[in-house]
């Protein structure tokens, strides 16, 4: 079992290093094949570990070696495979395998082909470290690793100004949140003296509740950054500058769910502080609706899906915040499948349209790319939450949880959001694949993607359809480590009605999207576009602008002051002063080096005298001192 664990963990690293060797050389298909094969190996190892645990095996816990041994601080490189981490491992490696194979087709004309695979595999390795670590510090290393790889991949086309800007934005936003997380980890070490999950969670209930609250808040700030929750959400939509497979893998299926994973992993901590949990749930519900409204009107296919990711992450946080950790994990898993599928489909569309993202310029594309249309339709239905697709089961459970806790406001928000979700996902599908063929006016000649790319997406499509049916098996599997969430009797009776109500609004959303696009082009007429709400949504609530005005511009001005006043006048002046002094001294004394022997001899004598005088003065220093004191008196 230990070997399997090491294989699952290190196969992506080997792949990354292998592709890295060819990083600067021209494209070789070999790198794509080798990295894909190694990720698949990792997937198989994860699957075997899963089967081991599923058949009732003990969790696998290894300590590879000592890492930090300083005083009382003892952090080993330890890894644990239990029901939660194996679920994450399976999702990560499965989606990664698909994305790797898909990328071989997607990136085939790109100069940075080898580099891309190196980064992508490095990301998978970091993500595996994140989910498999048995302590907070290892998790943090993985956390930073995925942040780094995300930065590399968003800015993959570094010659584009917008891509580098987006990469930096994502990195800086995450750094702000990571500071919070780091403080949380410090607090844990300070109060418990260990960072191992086992030790921490065994002792957490002995701590003062205020400290636990602070730990919870700071850890959640870290989670907010990685999972792009309000107010640190702006980076996710901008991260769509990266290649689409990256958006599918990192900014939809895996990395952004790390925040949810952290909350689930630290469930014993968050269990003690229901108030923080309620805050998490409220923020989640707010983000779910907030992001969905932005997705309603956006005309950029990838941004719509990115906002939808934000919205779904909000759903996960509602479940996690209300203590239904297994449901949060369940939605994380199903969401990973259909969202990755949606993004890869969008990638096909983009490729067909020569990287055009505006859905208003598409339409009727099902005629040229039927395979992609079917796959995206499956993903959209799953996202909208229609029975028996995967999204139905997990999303519905979250709504039930909100209803069960008598959080009717949360429930209402999520319920409306479910309708919005259905609307915007079908708005995209309708505008892209149905209706009149607007692309012809713009001179595009779309073509279907390689067949192996579609085949690579097929497993995700199958899972997007059937994953929800395994709800009970999933529950039986994870509840060994995650707490059981008991629904009250009242809710039990209501489940039927709740499902009907939720499905009704989802179907309504779909219907509006379909009909509005069938009879005229889009729901939003030109008059409607001048509406205040439309403008608000379209401009992302003016938040990027506000951030620009409130943070970026004053910061720039402050930097200017520091640059001109402090750096130029103090720091630089000191450094230049030293150099100038030396220079002037040299200029003055270079007369000594006249080359004239006579002068040199005089200087030699002068030096001799100085040495002689100082030697004598040193020898008789005490006598001289007494003399000087006598003079002073």
């Amino acid at each position, binding site marked *: 079992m230990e070997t399997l664990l090491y294989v699952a963990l290190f196969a992506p690293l080997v792949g990354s290093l292998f592709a890295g060797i060819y990083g600067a050389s021209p494209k070789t298909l070999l790198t794509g094949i080798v990295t894909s094969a190694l990720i698949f190996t990792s997937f198989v190892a994860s699957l075997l570990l899963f089967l081991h645990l599923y058949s009732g095996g003990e969790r696998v816990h290894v300590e590879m070696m000592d890492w930090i041994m300083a005083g009382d601080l003892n952090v080993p490189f330890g890894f644990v495979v239990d029901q939660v981490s194996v679920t994450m491992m399976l999702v990560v490696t499965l989606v990664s395998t698909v994305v790797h194979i898909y990328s071989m087709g997607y990136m085939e004309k790109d100069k940075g082909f080898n580099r891309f695979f190196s980064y992508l595999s490095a990301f998978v390795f970091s993500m595996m470290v994140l989910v498999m670590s048995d302590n907070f510090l290892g998790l943090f290393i993985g956390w930073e690793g995925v942040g780094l790889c995300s930065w590399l991949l968003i800015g993959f086309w570094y010659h584009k100004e917008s891509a580098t800007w987006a990469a930096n934005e994502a990195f800086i936003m995450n750094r702000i949140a990571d500071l919070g997380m780091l403080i949380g980890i410090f607090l844990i070490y300070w109060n418990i003296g260990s960072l191992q999950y086992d030790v921490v969670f065994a002792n957490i209930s002995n701590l003062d509740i205020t400290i636990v609250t602070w730990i919870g808040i700071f850890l959640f700030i870290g989670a907010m950054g990685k999972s792009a929750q309000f107010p640190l959400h702006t980076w996710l939509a901008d991260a769509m500058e990266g290649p689409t497979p990256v958006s599918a893998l990192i900014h939809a299926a895996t990395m952004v769910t790390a925040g949810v994973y952290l909350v689930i992993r630290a469930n014993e901590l968050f269990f003690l502080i229901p108030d923080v949990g309620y805050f998490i749930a409220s923020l989640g519900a707010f983000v779910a609706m907030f992001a969905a409204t932005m997705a309603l009107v956006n005309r950029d296919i990838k941004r719509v899906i990115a906002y939808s990711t934000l919205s779904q992450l909000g759903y996960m946080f509602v479940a996690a915040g209300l203590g239904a950790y297994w449901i949060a994990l369940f939605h994380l898993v199903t969401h990973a499948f259909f969202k990755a599928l949606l993004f890869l489909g969008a990638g096909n569309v983009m490729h067909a349209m020569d990287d055009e993202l505006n859905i208003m310029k598409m339409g009727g594309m099902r005629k040229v790319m039927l395979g992609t249309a079917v796959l995206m339709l499956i993903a959209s239905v799953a996202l909208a939450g229609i029975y028996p697709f995967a999204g139905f089961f997990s999303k519905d459970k979250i709504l039930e949880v909100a209803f069960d806790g008598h959080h009717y406001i949360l429930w209402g928000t999520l319920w409306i959001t479910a309708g919005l979700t259905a609307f915007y996902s079908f708005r995209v599908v309708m505008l892209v694949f149905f209706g009149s063929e607007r692309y012809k006016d713009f001179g595009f000649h779309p073509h279907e993607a390689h067949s192996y790319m579609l085949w690579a997406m097929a497993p995700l499509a199958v899972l997007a359809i059937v994953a929800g049916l395994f709800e009970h098996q999933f529950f039986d599997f994870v509840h060994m480590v995650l707490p059981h969430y008991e629904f009250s009797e009242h809710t039990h009776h209501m489940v039927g009605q709740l499902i009907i109500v939720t499905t009704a609004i989802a179907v309504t959303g779909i219907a509006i999207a379909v009909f509005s696009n069938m009879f005229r082009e889009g729901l939003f007429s030109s008059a409607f576009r001048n509406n205040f709400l439309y403008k608000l949504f379209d401009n992302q609530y003016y938040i990027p602008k506000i951030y620009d005005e409130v943070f970026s511009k004053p910061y720039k001005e402050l930097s200017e002051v520091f640059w001109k006043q402090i750096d130029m006048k103090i720091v630089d002046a000191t450094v230049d002063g030293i150099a100038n002094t030396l220079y002037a001294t040299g200029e003055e004394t*270079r007369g000594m*080096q*006249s*080359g*004239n*022997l*006579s002068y040199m*001899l*005089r200087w030699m*004598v002068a030096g001799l005298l100085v040495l002689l005088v100082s030697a004598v003065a040193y020898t008789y220093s005490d006598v001289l001192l007494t003399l000087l004191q006598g003079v002073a008196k």
Partner: protein
Amino acid sequence: MIAMEHYIILSTLLFAIGMYGVIIRKNLLMLFFATEIMLNAVNVALAAISNYYGDLTGQMFAFFIVAIAASEVAIGLGLLIIWFKRHGSIDLDTLKSMKG
């Protein structure tokens, strides 16, 4: 009676004269004379101190210095003659090939 101090004073005076010569003379030949004076000032001091302590080491050193000074002067004068043949002058101010 000529005491120890007298020798030392003589030696110091000779050394100072020699050093003065080194500093102000411009003629290379004169410079040689000045250095010879300085060397012999040291010899006087060595011999006197050696006699004072009844230790022969100092006097032996003096002999060595005389011998080395002789060979040094021989080489020095040789170089000096070659220099004079080449440049027609042994004035220090004309010796400026090292000027940076």
